[in-house]
């Protein structure tokens, strides 16, 4: 009945007797009607019980909580890195369109959005770990270990943010209140810092939220490549071993996390931008 094949054939020893197969089926509820299995799962999930891993014999919620800190660490580092580079670069390139810095920003924007992160990850390993020996290849032992995976994970979001900020700054710069500020004789630095930046950053808030969720999901490749012991490697293992309950649990967790984060983003938007409240 499952598109992915019968879990019993995959989980039980290849030489298992029909009785052992049946016992496994009964023990895991695979003998019950699909609708009943689904409703039972749904009921438990609402209560926070996402079932038990077939392969590791542990509650899925416990496994997720075990791995969550590593994933959070990586996603937050990647997010911080992309903000750190994207914000100044996006603003400068918007304020000085056509300058060499603008060219660099547009290049990063384009590259970030087109280079696949898993490919970049491998190149980073080959160049910075194998050839230059500047960073370790894999693992999560020290802050140094965070560098390459965080770079690989941050680039896509960074590209998007640079492009977004650049166009937001360009747009704000054309606003009447900027012209008024100039007419009042304010210096360009004050205009940029006081009037352009805060207004240009508003659309960034929603992108940051989306990007963070993307980084949690995107970490499946990046974590697997860098052997980063987080949710991504857990999901990768679960998929490889057809550990359906665990795959389901992680997917539901990431989805719930994304919904929660989107809600927070919307609330934050209201707090930051008074215009959003009035609408």
């Amino acid at each position: 009945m499952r598109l992915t094949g019968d879990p019993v054939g995959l989980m039980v020893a290849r030489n298992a007797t029909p009785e052992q197969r049946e016992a496994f089926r009964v023990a895991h509820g695979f003998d019950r009607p699909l609708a009943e299995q689904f409703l039972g799962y749904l009921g438990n999930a609402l209560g926070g019980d996402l079932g038990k891993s077939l392969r590791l014999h542990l509650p899925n919620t416990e496994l997720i909580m075990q791995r969550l800190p590593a994933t959070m660490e990586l996603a937050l580092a990647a997010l911080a890195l992309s903000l750190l580079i994207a914000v100044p670069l996006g603003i400068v390139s918007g304020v000085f369109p056509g300058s060499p810095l603008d060219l660099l920003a547009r290049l990063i924007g384009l590259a970030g959005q087109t280079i696949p992160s898993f490919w970049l990850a491998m190149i980073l390993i080959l160049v910075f770990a194998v050839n230059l020996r500047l960073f370790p290849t894999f693992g999560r032992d020290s802050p140094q270990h965070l560098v390459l995976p965080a770079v690989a994970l941050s680039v896509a979001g960074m590209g998007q943010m640079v492009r977004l900020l650049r166009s937001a700054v360009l747009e704000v710069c054309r606003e009447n209140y900027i012209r008024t500020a100039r007419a009042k004789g304010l210096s360009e630095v004050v205009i940029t810092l006081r009037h352009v930046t805060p207004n240009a950053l508003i659309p960034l808030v929603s992108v940051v939220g989306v990007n963070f969720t993307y980084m949690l999901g995107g970490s499946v490749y990046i974590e697997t490549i860098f052997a980063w012991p987080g949710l991504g490697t857990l999901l990768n293992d679960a998929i490889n071993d057809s550990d359906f309950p665990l795959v389901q649990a992680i997917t539901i967790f990431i989805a719930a996390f994304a919904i929660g984060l989107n809600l927070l983003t919307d609330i934050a938007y209201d707090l930051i931008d008074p215009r959003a409240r009035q609408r």
Partner: protein
Amino acid sequence: MRIKVVLFLVIVSLIFPLFPVSGQPSGELVIALPNDPTGIFIANASDVTAISATRPLYDGLVVYGADGSIQPGLAESWDISEDGRTYTFHLREGVTFHNGEDFNAHAVGTIWEYGMTPTNQWLSYYDSVASAEDIVVIDDYTVQITTSEADAFFLSEMANGWFAIPPGYLAEVGLEAFEASPVGTGPFMLEHWAPGDRIVMRAFPDYWNPEQPKVERLTFRIIPDATTRMAAIQTGEVDIVTRLNTDDVALLEFNPDVNIVSYPNDRVYYVAFKNIGNGVGTPLENELVRQALNLAVDREGLVAALFSGNGQTVSGFVIPSNLGYDPSLLPYPHDPQRARELLAEAGYPDGFGIGMSCPADAYTNINEVCLSVQRDLGAIGVDVDLEFKTTNAFWSEAHYATTGPMYVDSWSSPNGEAFWRLEGSLTPGYYYSTWTDPDIVDYLGRIAQAVDREERAALYAELSHYMYDDPPYIYLYILNLFEATTKRVTGYQPLPNETFYLNEVGVDG
């Protein structure tokens, strides 16, 4: 005079540190694992990676020798009763568990009781202990185990997974805590386990064999991505990587810091025929047809073209590293002319059409192997309708009922004997068995009860000839496996079943 003495001392002190004290473990060995072990309690270790990674913590009553024979472990010797059912083990004295608990006859049955508990019986581990019917403690260092029937593989099963675990500690901490932090009598004791990341062990100072282990610290690192494992051995961050493909080998071959270890894997690739289900009434039921199909396939060409020659063609399911292999039995030659003659003799001068299933991407280059078999059979007039299936669908119950009537598959066999491959694929009623031959079943029954190794070897050879003349499969090939170690690793030799012992593995410097 004094200067000479000083000089002598200086020279001695310079030379001496180069030779570590014999038996003193030193250094750290780091091994990359391709996937996260399912557990480090041996009963939860369900694949070869997990078994290799957990085994250093434990000892069995018996262990494997390099040639696959059974050697003394925690049992110094044993006697087998006339009827082959009762084993009396004489245990090694003075062995302790990592927690200080004494190992004796009372500890032998602990793992068996765990495996026989009904709620644990669907675990693959159940197979390791299910043969034993009863365990009787004769005295502190003598224990008698009775099997339900004479069982040729009882000692192999014991060597595989019947490990000593401490009954006192288990009762004290409970199963859940034990699974997270298991204790055995093995050469290494657990220091730290971070799931998905690493398992760290250190040498057990009171190990019963004072010559083992050779390294002080043993670390397994979980690195799922093959490219990253390759990078990690080049930078020296890990000492051993397993499961390399031929491209990896080509890349590492000329690296002065790396050694390549190669060994034949005990996994036979074959094309299966069905004489049950949709195989009934097909030309495959004719022995001459099956011989013809075997003659039609160019195995040598296939191994040369698809695996750069890193494999061997096989004459049957008993391969050179197996007990009872008969070197006089050569693989079927590539002889399409003779194949056509046999087909004509069987009443199919113009060939016939037949369906063949292929587990897409399940093994290295398997899709190309399927295509190449299809082409070779086409050359003798057998028109193969090839169907690729995803692996999950291929091995699911529903598929096996409708697959084929020919399909490409592979089967491994542990312990240096082909029995598990033969039994699993040829016992009627078994999940993956699609060929029924009462004579083969009879052979297998006799092998399973032949407790004597020589007798078993003779039976394997006889069965190989039978299965050569009346083949239930097109036998294809076995492949060499490649692993790499850094130059400082000594004494590492993986077993043909892809697992390894680490008792004798050391690191220089």
